[in-house]
């Protein structure tokens, strides 16, 4: 049988050692009423070529970025991933290793995670990063939960910007739904597509726990964090930023420089392929003074008994396997292979490359918007500054959509499904993967 190496001689000899006459005897202590109905009614196993054929058939029914022009972002981004990234994460020494609980034989993973934590701190300008969480949405929820641990029990109102990714808002709501006394209030966005600071200021008070905003937000708009920070500071609420497109942080003033308390986001953009939205990883950073309340794994530097530098998982008493019901979180995975991909990606692009690619994204996105507005009778929806994503209003959206699909173009996502008042609006994303001719084809399809 595939993947089980036992010959019938092996089985006989092993049974003899154990002192049993048959494999069935190994589980005869399980009640018969369970055993007799346990057969799995699934087809016979397939040969490897048959498996490949079957899966290829399924794969071929999908519109992949290999054949289509994508102008979709909204949380997952199509970027160039150097071949070296996949070469490293394909190494079985990384992919088939376990969580590094035995540091003597896990220095590879541990050092890479330490480098990851450092890179994310540098990119976000924050003081401390954990080793990663599931995804950006659960990172946002974990950030709110951390704020709940840090703030007094009189502060239980969470103010969430309506310009935060709608799925992230949904996940925050799910995580909070059973925690007594914690309420969520949504703060509207203004005409520029940014969180409405006046409305936020009105909503803030001595019961406010934290404020959660996107940076850039779901509409691609770069929030000005200065007034948000000072509004929070005045009332004692914590400021949490959520970044779905961390490439933007190579160009933008990072959350740390704005004095943000907790900065989280989705890291897929940094070297992980889209994979229909997962797995990527959530990054989680905060100010150093909160470190003992951080969820998830942390890697720290130390020395071995010969005084050589080494790395270990540390501050583990926060975690579920030790503190159980009092743990900071139930999480026990850190998406390590995905954070490794991001580490290799950031190391390759480096100080100049990451900024270069961010500039290319911004330039192409701005060019595309200019051309669409100039040539294609669409209008820019929000005046706020943006990085590589922007929203437009377009008449005859259905027709436009059809024309694009015929040309194998995915022209962004329709905002109406999350914002009924924006039913005729599209959110577009332009990256370095959208070459000049793709942009040309998009403009033609939209304008014809």
């Amino acid at each position, binding site marked *: 049988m595939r993947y089980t190496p036992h010959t019938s001689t092996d089985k006989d000899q092993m049974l003899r050692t154990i002192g049993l006459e048959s494999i069935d005897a190994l589980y005869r202590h399980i009640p018969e009423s369970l055993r007799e109905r346990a057969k799995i009614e699934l087809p016979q196993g397939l040969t490897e070529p048959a498996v490949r054929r079957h899966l290829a058939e399924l794969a071929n029914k999908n519109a992949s970025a290999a054949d289509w022009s994508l102008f979709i972002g909204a949380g997952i981004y199509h970027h160039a991933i150097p071949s070296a990234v996949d070469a490293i994460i394909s190494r079985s020494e990384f992919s088939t290793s376990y*969580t590094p*609980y035995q540091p003597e034989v896990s220095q590879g993973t541990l050092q890479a995670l330490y480098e990851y934590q450092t890179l994310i701190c540098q990119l976000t300008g924050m003081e401390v990063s954990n080793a990663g969480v599931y995804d950006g949405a659960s990172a946002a929820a974990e950030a709110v939960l951390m704020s709940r641990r840090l703030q007094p029990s009189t502060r239980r109102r969470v103010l969430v910007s309506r310009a935060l990714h709608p799925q992230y808002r949904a996940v925050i709501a799910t995580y909070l739904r059973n925690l007594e006394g914690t309420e969520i209030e949504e703060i509207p966005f203004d005409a520029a597509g940014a969180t409405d600071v006046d409305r936020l200021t009105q909503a803030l008070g001595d019961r406010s726990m934290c404020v959660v905003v996107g940076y850039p937000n779901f509409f691609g708009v770069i929030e000005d964090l200065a007034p948000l920070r000072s509004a929070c500071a005045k009332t004692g609420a914590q400021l949490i930023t959520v970044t779905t497109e961390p490439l933007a942080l190579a160009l933008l003033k990072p959350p740390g420089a704005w004095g943000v308390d907790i900065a989280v986001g989705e890291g897929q953009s940094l070297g992980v392929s889209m994979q229909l939205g997962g797995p990527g990883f959530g990054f989680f950073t905060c100010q150093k003074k909160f470190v*003992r309340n951080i969820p998830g794994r942390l890697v720290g530097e130390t020395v071995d008994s010969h005084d050589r530098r080494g790395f270990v998982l540390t501050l*583990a*008493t926060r*975690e579920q*396997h*030790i*503190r159980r019901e009092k743990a900071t979180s139930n999480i*026990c995975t850190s998406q390590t292979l995905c954070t490794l991909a991001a580490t290799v990606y950031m190391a390759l692009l480096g100080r100049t490359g990451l900024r270069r690619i961010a500039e290319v994204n911004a330039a192409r996105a701005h060019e595309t918007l200019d051309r669409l507005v100039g040539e294609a009778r669409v209008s820019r929806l929000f005046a706020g500054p943006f990085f590589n994503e922007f929203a437009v209003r377009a008449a005859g959206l259905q027709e436009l959509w059809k024309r694009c699909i015929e040309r194998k173009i995915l022209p962004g996502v329709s905002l109406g499904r999350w914002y009924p008042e924006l039913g005729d609006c599209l959110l577009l994303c332009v990256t370095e993967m959208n070459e000049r001719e793709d942009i040309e084809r998009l403009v033609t399809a939209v304008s014809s």
Partner: protein
Amino acid sequence: MEFPEGLKYSKEHEWVLVDGKTATIGITEFAQEELGDIVYVELPEVGEKVVKDDPFGAVESVKAVSDVYAPVSGAVVEINDLLPDNPETINDDPYGDGWMVRVEMTDMDDLKDLMSAEEYAEYVEQRKEEADEDDDEVDDEEEEG
């Protein structure tokens, strides 16, 4: 193992030094040895009320957390500022520099329930014997799954 005379001891392995209404509290040598290398100490704030038999702080080793229970009720008047940055002080000098808090007691009767050095030594001996029977050495734990 040392259990100085003149201190009072609790079943949760805290010691108390009484001076008038002020009680200085720490954990015993037995407790620090059971825990191993102490890496973090969580202390209450000055002014906070502590209640007899309720946890008022915690000590952490690399892979375990232990609550520290108040042997007496009262208000915290002083905490040991040395500990947050030097938690190993508890390992090195549990009855001296490793003290944790000073409490202004509200009920002197609380002291009645505590043990003398001799009684505590016996209590620890018993615990050790039980532990040997159970082979109950919890020095470390690892993650699974």
